[in-house]
């Protein structure tokens, strides 16, 4: 593979991922509106929003730490788009592949949250400071169950000798469900459920939109951001939504349907890619859209307690089942 080829592919994934993120955001808003008995914005609203924000003035508050305030949106965008490069896209393997990229993705997913928190602290507003504190607490709360879920799956695959250890490409190529025993299936199901619970938290959506909490702290860590910087955070959020849902799909449902339909060649690739995007949409709809219309916002202490105790306990139980499965099945 030439490096020029690689650049083209990367550009396609980045642009495609960004566009897809905005399209899915549009669907998310429209469907949420319908569930709330509203008409909702047109599907292209996220594009209009980004376009509008890009031409608006970008205000940097006087009390802000200027360079940090301005750098953080870029960091968030770069990190969340980089995740897209490490994820396999249905029939297409990931653009960037290394051993242990599952771990790398975990860290990359945490970077936008850290960037937002730093940007919040740098904006010199008490509301943003509260939001940033909450973001950090959130990060510390959901990271452990997230890590347990991801690591559990890739570790089990490694023990079964499926390709390089901790590689997302390997897990996509060899779905675990059929390779493990019954205990392992239960364990995997538990981990999948945990990951679905973590998803809205990772994306700061209701009931976990605590760092932004419009009615409480007026947008929290985003309160001072405007114009281009806000547009960048908006894009980062869109990309991260796709990345998170794609991660769930890659780990737990990396199946294609081309084989079932008896297709091969380019047709199979196209069908599988569409199917992959459809799965991403289903995950987003189930874990983000429906949850955010069905619940009230929780409080930071409730979330921290819930993730540290209940969700972590459940995730660890899932991991223990996988370990037991390893002992039984081998």
């Amino acid at each position, binding site marked *: 593979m030439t490096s020029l080829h690689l650049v083209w592919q990367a550009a396609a994934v980045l642009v495609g991922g960004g566009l897809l993120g905005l399209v899915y955001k549009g669907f998310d808003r429209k469907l949420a509106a319908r*569930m*709330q*008995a*509203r008409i909702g914005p047109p599907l292209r609203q996220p594009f209009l929003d980004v376009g509008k924000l890009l031409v608006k003035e970008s205000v940097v508050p006087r009390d802000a730490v200027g360079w940090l305030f301005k750098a953080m949106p870029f960091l968030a965008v770069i990190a969340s788009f980089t995740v897209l490069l490490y994820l396999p896209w249905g029939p297409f393997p990931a653009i960037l592949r290394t051993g242990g990229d599952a771990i790398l993705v975990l860290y990359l997913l945490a970077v936008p949250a850290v960037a937002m928190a730093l940007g919040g602290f740098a904006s010199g507003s*008490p*509301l943003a*400071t*509260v939001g940033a*504190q*909450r973001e950090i*607490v959130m990060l510390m709360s959901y990271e452990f169950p997230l890590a347990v879920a991801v690591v559990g799956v890739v570790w089990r695959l490694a023990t079964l000798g499926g390709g390089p250890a901790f590689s997302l490409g390997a897990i996509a190529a060899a779905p675990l469900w059929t390779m493990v025993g019954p205990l392992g299936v239960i364990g995997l199901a538990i981990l999948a459920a945990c990951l679905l619970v973590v998803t809205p938290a990772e994306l700061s959506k*209701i*009931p976990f*939109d*605590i760092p932004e*909490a*419009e*009615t*409480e*702290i*007026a947008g929290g860590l985003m309160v001072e951001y405007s114009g281009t910087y806000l547009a960048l955070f908006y894009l980062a959020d869109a990309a991260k939504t796709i990345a998170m849902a794609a991660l769930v799909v890659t780990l737990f449902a990396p199946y294609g349907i081309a084989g079932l339909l008896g297709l091969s060649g380019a047709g199979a690739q196209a069908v599988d890619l569409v199917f992959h995007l459809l799965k991403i949409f289903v995950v987003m709809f189930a874990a983000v859209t429906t949850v955010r*219309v*069905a*619940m*009230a*916002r*929780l*409080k*930071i*202490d*409730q979330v921290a307690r819930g993730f540290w105790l209940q969700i972590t306990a459940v995730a660890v139980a899932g991991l223990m089942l996988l370990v037991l499965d390893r002992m039984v099945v081998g």
Partner: protein
Amino acid sequence: MAETQNVYEIPIGPIHPALKEPIRFTFQVEGERIRGVDIRAGFAHRGIEFMAMKRNLIQTLYLSERICGICSISHPITITLAVERAAGIEVPPRAQYLRVIYSELERIHSHLLWAGVAAHELGFDTLLHLTWKVREQVLDLLEELSGNRIDYALPIYGGVRRDVSPEQTPKVEAMVRYYRGLLDELLDAFLRDPSVEARTRDVGILTSEEADSLCAVGPTARASGLSKDVRQDRPYLVYGELGVKAITPRDYGLEPRGDVYDKAVVRLLEVAQSLDLIETCLYEMPEGEITSFPKVPALLAYLKKVEGEGLGWHEAPRGEVIHYIRLEAGVEEPIVWKVKAPTYSNLMSWVPMFRDQEVADIPIIAASIDPCMCCMDRVHVVRDGSPATVLKEDLLRLSRAKTERMVGGSRLSASGPRSTAHGRRTTDNGQRTPDHGGGL
């Protein structure tokens, strides 16, 4: 998180998404815990009472309706009660029943409005949209009965301006049936939803002792277990005959804790109570006149001759509202008009409610008393371009100075103002008096 000694201030308001109207809170916050709060009101003061002193009583009635859009039956009813008491005007029985119907309709739409706002403050926008969707039904009925969704122009001195016609009666009944069928669903959505319960139970507690000593009114007091309802304690109109009982969480089988959850319980049960009252009124309402002064000029002419003072009280959706009016013979305008809105009485209950709560609880606690700033804001002192704060001591001093001035030979009799000598009212005057030379 913040260090233990690291108490910093978070300003909320006067303009903030959590607040539907301007008021300013300054919270002393330690991490996510609220250690103290300073409340500053007065941003929605429009000088309405002063404006009334330049208008005749009919115009004042319309003005009273514009104190607040949501309370646009409560204020006119209360001022009519005050004026009728001052002028000795009888209200025909049918009009009294109609007033009750209109007030209870207002209570339903106001409580549903509150429920939607509360859901929004919790970040539960689905519930907001659904609640406000069902609220449309009562607004439609009010529009059918009065021609307007708010600002109905229904009460007038001596009666009401519009009857409920025989054709409209089925529509009222349909509305009652609609909400009765919906009530369980509403209770389900608000009281049995785990995420709502997690955010409202034991949040913003006002104990019954605190509610009592701070003179909280309305659902705020009743949620703390106080059996306090003007319709029950000092009946007016036909509320005495209807036998209204103050609703507390006990009616829902709960021991009152005075938290936000209890306030939702009380308000939702009051919707059911209002439905019952409307239905009873609809059936028991006698035929007859709806006003004792069909012609407005005759009413104005009569009111111009009246000399005296009157107090009107009413259980608005947010609690007890009181209007005091003083009329002088030969003058069309009211000499004094004092409005005490329920939010004024409930303002101080915020302080114990906010104590040791979390920042995340601020919006729902602020909303839990169903504040209405534009009803409440009566005094806003700005002198030499800088806002000043009037403390209780200042009020007392100004009030005494005012009384002394009046005892020392003013147009008003000394006993009049003294009998109603609320510091607030007199300050309102006292603040003006230096420029206006003592008289009103």
